[in-house]
């Protein structure tokens, strides 16, 4: 069973957002990393890049495939997880912790409220697996 922490917001593209003040931290979910398999490469945006909600901000690559990563919220990149360049496997081992990808300064802090809750996301992944 995939791990789905209570305190995060989720997207149907399998990203999570954790709110820290006026910033949102984004990563991919345990379910997502598990279906991708071993992550071997993570491409992240540059600090200062701006994204609209649901826009692709980077990609995650397994041996077999490339998957784009979308930001569920609009904002400007203020920090990226540079350690993923040398240790992309953190996305697998600790998707909600050391495997975080970017900090965005949120353009519309209310935006996270329209995302899925942990319970909703769990139901969503269950339906997708069936």
């Amino acid at each position, binding site marked *: 069973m995939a791990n789905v922490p209570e305190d995060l917001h989720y997207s149907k593209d399998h990203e999570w957002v954790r709110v820290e003040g006026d910033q949102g931290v984004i990563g991919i979910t345990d379910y997502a990393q598990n279906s991708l398999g*071993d992550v071997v490469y993570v491409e992240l945006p540059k600090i200062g890049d701006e994204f609209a909600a649901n826009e692709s901000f980077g990609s995650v690559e397994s041996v*077999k495939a490339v998957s784009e990563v979308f930001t569920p919220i609009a904002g400007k990149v203020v920090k990226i997880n540079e350690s993923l*360049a040398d240790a992309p496997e953190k996305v697998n081992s600790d998707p909600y912790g050391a495997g975080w990808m970017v900090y965005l300064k949120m353009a519309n802090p209310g935006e996270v409220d329209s995302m899925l809750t942990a319970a909703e996301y769990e139901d969503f992944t269950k339906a997708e697996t069936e």
Partner: protein
Amino acid sequence: MVDFGGWDMPVQYPAGTIEEHLRTRTHAGLFDVSHMGEIDVAGPDAITFVNRVTSNDVTKLIDGQAQYSALTTPAGTVIDDLLVYRIAHDHLLLVVNAGTTTKDWEWISTQHRGESVKLLNVSEDYCQLAIQGPDALSILQQLTPVPLAAMKYYHFGFGNVDGVSAIISRTGYTGEDGFEVYAAPDKAEQLWNKLLAAGNFGSDTGVLPCGLAARNTLRLEAGMALYGNDIDETTTLYEANLGWICKLDKGEFIGREKLAQQKEAGLKRKLVGFEVTDRGIARDHQDVVIGDQRVGQVTSGSPAPYLKKNIGLAYVPTEFSGVGQEIKIDVRGRLVAAQIVKAPFYKRPK
């Protein structure tokens, strides 16, 4: 699970592609390759017939020997790559790719020119399990009385595996020593489970079941072509570096004339191996760029788990095909530096 030539096949097992790949290089991997097709050719003219539809020299085989070869079009391009097994002077078995079995069968069965042969599509009569890696021999030997160490590379024999009658062949698609076992399909599960048990599946140094993704990365490191990616009906054997299975001197065969002409005239393009020198992973179908010119295309691109590099195969114009040539790969709009290197990328220690 993914659809592969009409077969539901696992991309990877729970250990994951990287671990499956590494374990095959260091100990052993087990692959269910029952999807491969088999065509039985029997009759007094079996060798003559197969020699005319394939590019390698079938007359060089002895009983119990196998050969890598290709079915060629009149243009010298590749209908499929295959293994030709000589069971007897009047009996051959062709092992072909899953996705091309129907096409191959239709092609071969319309190439009769009066030869006395009986062709049978026996794909459904066989399962095929491949046990590959340095421990493959000792694992399989626990289940069979056939003396495996005495079997040479690209030779095969008939014998029992766990009491099941089988063809045991010292062949594979991983760049490792190993064996492929052909048996009745209803025995597949039994053989699979016995091979896992004999190989100590579950221990850190035991055999691992491997999926399609590891099969692909292993063959790519070993510089082996994948039909549909690196070779197809638009690529000739010489362009694909498969001149070594193209025996122009053996006598007439389909495509011989065009291949001879191409050999004489020289190649315009060639399949080469490359290594990405920047950060980034080259993938199938991405363009190869030199200067501001798009000069070719990646046919297989992937991380190489054992070499810990990002590698690939690509067609490039012959003038840019030398080892050391700097190229760029268009990775989704980003030009990533790469260099042409000698293939195979990986050679197992002897």
